[in-house]
């Protein structure tokens, strides 16, 4: 989450004081990202240094300053909105490792392992759905944030379902025959990232 660009977006509407920016930032991100006022002013200082915002009064207390977006700032905001986000390694990669390792461990039923993760994922989804269900119908920010998390968890459950089907179609094999290299190569991939 880029605080810098979120502040630019808020300033793109009209000039604002720091405290108001803090309140609006929290309200519009479904209150998921609390932001202390120090972070707000540090970020505003950097934006000012980079010429993306200017203040009305140069010498006043920081809380007295009103910030205004520059044309460079507006351009930076538009570019950021259409730039693909950093593709951070998805959290379910650890799940892939666990499934691969489970295949190698004698006495472990892979389907039970997958089911444990499916249950955890769905319990987590129930939490987010409950929040969405009790939210005001007009709270679009909260619904969008909850949906994003729900779709991510949904992808995890679909992967677990697909893994279940795939493994069921395999002929049973003795654990000793399983190539350990599979796990090693995945771990190497992880490290190299």
């Amino acid at each position: 989450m880029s605080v810098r660009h979120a502040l630019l977006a808020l300033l793109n509407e009209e000039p604002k004081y720091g405290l108001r920016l803090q309140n609006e930032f929290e309200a519009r991100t479904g209150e998921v990202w609390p932001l202390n006022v120090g972070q707000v002013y540090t970020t505003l200082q950097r934006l000012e240094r980079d010429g993306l915002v200017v203040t009305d009064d140069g010498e006043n207390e920081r809380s007295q300053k009103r910030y205004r977006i520059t044309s460079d700032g507006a351009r930076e905001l538009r570019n950021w909105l259409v730039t693909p986000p950093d593709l951070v390694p998805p959290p379910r990669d650890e799940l892939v490792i666990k499934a691969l390792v489970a295949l190698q461990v004698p006495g472990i039923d892979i389907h039970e392992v997958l089911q444990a993760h499916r249950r955890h994922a769905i319990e987590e989804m129930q939490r987010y759905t409950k929040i969405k269900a009790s939210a005001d119908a007009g709270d679009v920010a909260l619904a969008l944030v909850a949906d994003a998390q729900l779709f991510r968890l949904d992808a995890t459950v679909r992967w677990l379902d697909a893994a279940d089907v795939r493994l069921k179609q395999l002929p049973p094999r003795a654990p000793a025959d399983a190539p350990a290299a599979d796990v090693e190569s995945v771990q190497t991939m992880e490290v190299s990232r």
Partner: protein
Amino acid sequence: MTSALELRQVSKVYGSGPTEVHALRDIDLSVQRSELVAVMGPSGSGKSTLLTIAGSLEHATSGHVLVDGVDLASVSHSDRARMRRRSIGYVFQDFNLLPGLTALENVTMPLELDGVSSKGAREAGLEAMEELDVAERADRYPDELSGGERQRVAIARAIVGERGLLLADEPTGALDSVNGEAVMRLLRAATQRGVAGVVVTHEAQLASWADRVVFLRDGHVVDQTVAPAGPESLLAAAAQR
């Protein structure tokens, strides 16, 4: 407390000998009023069979099915048919509305079949349609309704009158995710008004609307969720991770 629905050691076997298929094995499940339970499982896990047996549309090979404490096997064929009409509502994937009847006539049909007067049925039908916010479409025919409206009418038909058990098989059909969510909200609202609900689905997002999710595999209940305490906000949800 008597469960609205209780399955005790229910098994279902199709065919016999070498072609025998065990669709359900020793299922124990109880659902309370005001509770929405989702049943998830891969194709062939027995989830639709579970629903048809719970709704008395099919007989169990062994075990007991109790609706409001009444063992379906202990009552006569005609009493069972009456329970099916009066106590149990169904929502199907493809809505199953009759095209020659208006929306209201579709909703009131189970009551009229049960001998309720036209006037009484009409009042109860409109009340159910109002709960689902579709009463203003009462005189329209199914082909004049949108997909979302058709599903609302189908749910109204399932809860009309005094029904205590609502059974739904993939009730969001081909609706997109936001309209599918709307259907789950309606089913949840219906159960919160005191009905017991069972929804069969293969979609995790829809299942997550339920109070409890039961997982079937190869005809067995293999697992179920523990009711989440429910954080007050997204922030708390994120903090619990």
